[in-house]
């Protein structure tokens, strides 16, 4: 654009000719120039205002958004920086039903070395070996003077040992904090708790991982920070558990048994109050699993859950209860129990080749007649018998919350011919764990409603399905009561607690096939008190022999039953059950001195 001069000569001359004022032309041009400058300034100012407005909108927008965010989010404690100290320990405690600690954490330290930072590697190695006798001096010297730049020396050390290592004054020896799992009660409930070990390890911390039992089954839950450090409350009762373990271990010694199992279970909820398997171990120092041989010889083997035993005559109550439920027999029905009974090519005999002749159904249970039970099972038929045992839970592993739980799958015969049906009726040919037996007895004692075993206290659970009528279940418990009153379980009778139970002696199967002649598993499965069953107690001894009065006996009535009786005698008061006495004791009131009698309503 060509700049217009203020006084263009052509126009000035023309204006002069016409006699006009040439200054007006200059003023006009000046005004035009100013207008252009003003336009530019205005648009620049508008631009600035726009940017300023944007800045204000942005700033207020940020404030508004922040306010909205603050109003909408959960209030939380402001923190300048992430502090290293963790308030809640990384793994939750495990307690029993009354809140007594079964497993907890303890802060200890681990010891590691940076050999390249060492001042005096040889001296450090010698002093370390003096503090920890299990370390080898030569090995340490080799490690410290070699090419390694890092090595672990000890995973857990006590505060005293830590101080001693501090006193060496070696800059290459360092400590890392460690949370150690502690089982303060030692061997008590060892199979249930299992044990734990370190998972991923780091200098600053290490994760604790459960390796067995409840620790493994609830590993995720125990480590979940969302639980806010709430402990896992098991259904166990520490007092009962410890009393039962004491009685069992004494019983095992007296009866010269190889192993023993005991279970105390609440009838209505299926909560396991105590469960033990002997021999046991210390979960603080868990032994290594056996690499060869029979795993059941290891103390790690949980006989109550993993052990599959033929449980013998304790099974007899199931076909009888079912037959009573279906109204096929009544407790007074006479059954022909002439021994031996021939099924196909097999002969079924009674214990010690007795022959009971004709018996009532009650006496079949009381005298534990094999032939009589087989007759009842024959009345039922194989299909119904199998169906009932399946409903009782004898065909699949128990639902108990242990990592070993799913491995306890019963050994069920695949085919179910007449002879299998007969042997299963008296507890041979079907191997199940003592926990299966306990839950089946709890089902019968619970008025026929299915009971599933559990280790967690006070969990909401659905009521089990009714698999036996309440009336038949009550009758079955009364039959069991008769066994203890006048049958093979007499030595399990405890005054005041109305124990009802059944003995079972089963020959142990040989690994090569067939049965041992002199090795048995004797079991006593019981319910008490019979009038209103509250608890189930199962005691099982592996290869017991009772030497009493000169003779040797392996029957459950002489071995497992007295131990079970002692368990009930010790445990029932601890569970808060009052003994039932027929007559209340008389109350003696001294007459008042002045001969008056106090009366009130």
């Amino acid at each position, binding site marked *: 654009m060509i700049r217009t001069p203020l006084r263009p000569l052509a126009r000035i001359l023309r204006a002069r000719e016409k006699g006009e004022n040439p200054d007006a032309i200059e003023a006009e041009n000046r005004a035009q120039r100013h207008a252009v400058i003003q336009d530019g300034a205005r648009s620049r100012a508008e631009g600035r205002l726009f940017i300023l407005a944007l800045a204000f909108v942005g700033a207020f927008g940020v404030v508004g958004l922040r306010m909205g965010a603050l109003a909408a989010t959960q209030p939380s404690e402001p923190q300048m920086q992430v502090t290293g100290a963790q308030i809640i320990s990384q793994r939750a405690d495990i307690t029993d039903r009354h809140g007594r*600690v079964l497993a907890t*954490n303890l802060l200890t330290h681990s010891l590691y070395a940076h050999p390249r930072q060492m001042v005096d590697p040889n001296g450090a190695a010698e002093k370390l070996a003096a503090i920890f006798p299990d370390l080898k001096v030569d090995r340490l010297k080799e490690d410290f003077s070699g090419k390694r730049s890092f090595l672990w020396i000890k995973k857990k050390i006590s505060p005293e040992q830590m101080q001693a290592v501090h006193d060496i004054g070696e800059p290459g020896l360092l400590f890392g904090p460690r949370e150690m799992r502690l089982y303060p*009660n030692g061997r008590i409930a060892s199979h249930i708790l299992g044990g734990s070990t370190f998972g991923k390890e780091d200098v600053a911390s290490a994760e604790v991982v459960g390796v067995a039992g409840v620790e493994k089954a609830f590993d995720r839950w125990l480590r979940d920070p969302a639980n806010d450090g709430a402990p896992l409350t098991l259904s166990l009762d520490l007092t009962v558990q410890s009393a039962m373990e004491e009685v069992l271990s004494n019983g095992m010694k007296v009866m010269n048994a190889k192993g023993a199992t005991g279970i105390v279970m609440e009838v209505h909820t299926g909560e396991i109050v105590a469960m033990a398997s002997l021999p046991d171990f210390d979960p603080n120092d868990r032994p290594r699993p056996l690499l060869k041989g029979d795993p059941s010889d290891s103390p790690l083997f949980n006989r109550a859950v993993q052990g599959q035993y033929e449980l013998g005559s304790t099974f007899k109550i199931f076909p009888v209860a079912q037959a009573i439920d279906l109204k096929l027999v009544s407790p007074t029905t006479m059954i022909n129990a002439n021994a031996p009974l021939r099924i196909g090519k097999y002969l079924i005999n009674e214990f010690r080749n007795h022959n009971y002749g004709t018996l009532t159904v009650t006496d079949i249970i009381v005298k534990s007649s094999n032939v009589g039970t087989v007759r009842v099972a024959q009345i039922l038929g194989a299909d119904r018998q199998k169906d009932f045992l399946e409903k009782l839970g004898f065909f699949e592993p128990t639902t108990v919350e242990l990592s070993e739980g799913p491995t306890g799958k019963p050994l069920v015969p695949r085919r179910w011919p007449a002879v299998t049906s007969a042997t299963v009726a008296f507890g041979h040919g079907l191997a199940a764990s003592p926990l299966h037996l306990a839950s089946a007895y709890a089902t019968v004692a619970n008025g026929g409603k299915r009971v599933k075993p559990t280790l967690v206290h006070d969990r909401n659970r659905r009521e089990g399905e009714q698999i036996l009528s309440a009336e038949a279940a009550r009758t079955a418990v009364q039959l069991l009561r008769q066994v203890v009153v006048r049958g093979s379980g007499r030595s399990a009778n405890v005054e005041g607690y109305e124990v009802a139970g059944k003995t079972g002696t089963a020959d142990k199967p040989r690994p090569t096939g067939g049965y041992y002649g002199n090795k048995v598993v004797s079991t006593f499965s019981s319910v008490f008190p019979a009038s209103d069953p509250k608890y189930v107690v199962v005691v099982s001894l592996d290869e017991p022999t009772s030497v009493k009065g000169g003779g040797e006996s392996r029957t459950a009535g002489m071995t497992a039953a007295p131990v079970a009786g002692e368990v009930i005698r010790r445990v029932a008061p601890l569970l808060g059950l009052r*003994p039932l006495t027929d007559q209340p004791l008389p109350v003696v009131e*001294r007459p008042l001195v002045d001969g008056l009698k106090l009366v009130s309503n």
Partner: protein
Amino acid sequence: MRSVLYLLTTLLVMGMAFWAYRENYSTQAALTDMVKVQREIAALREDLGVRRAEWAYLNRPERLRELVNLNFEKLKLVPFNAEQFVDVRQVAFPLPKAPPAADPAGLPDGVPVERPAGFPPLRPQERTP
């Protein structure tokens, strides 16, 4: 008029600045305090954990059993058994304190009685099922 307004505004701004300064420092002090308290809580929780573990360890049934056996002569503790459940009526109550002169029954002091005379009759809640 205008200069007074200016003066007041300046004073207000100075006051606000002073207040903001103090708030800033008190917030920072509170934050440091909080970190300290949190550390303390963590340390106390750790101590508590150790105490609980120690308590559980000292009260482990095995040790209690040993202690009972060691002190059997003094304490005579035996396992809890069924005979120890009795009715409240059978619990020996201490004799009510009577004036020493008015004791016509002539019983020596401190003799426990099943249910002392003059004791109010049984209330329903005393009777256990």
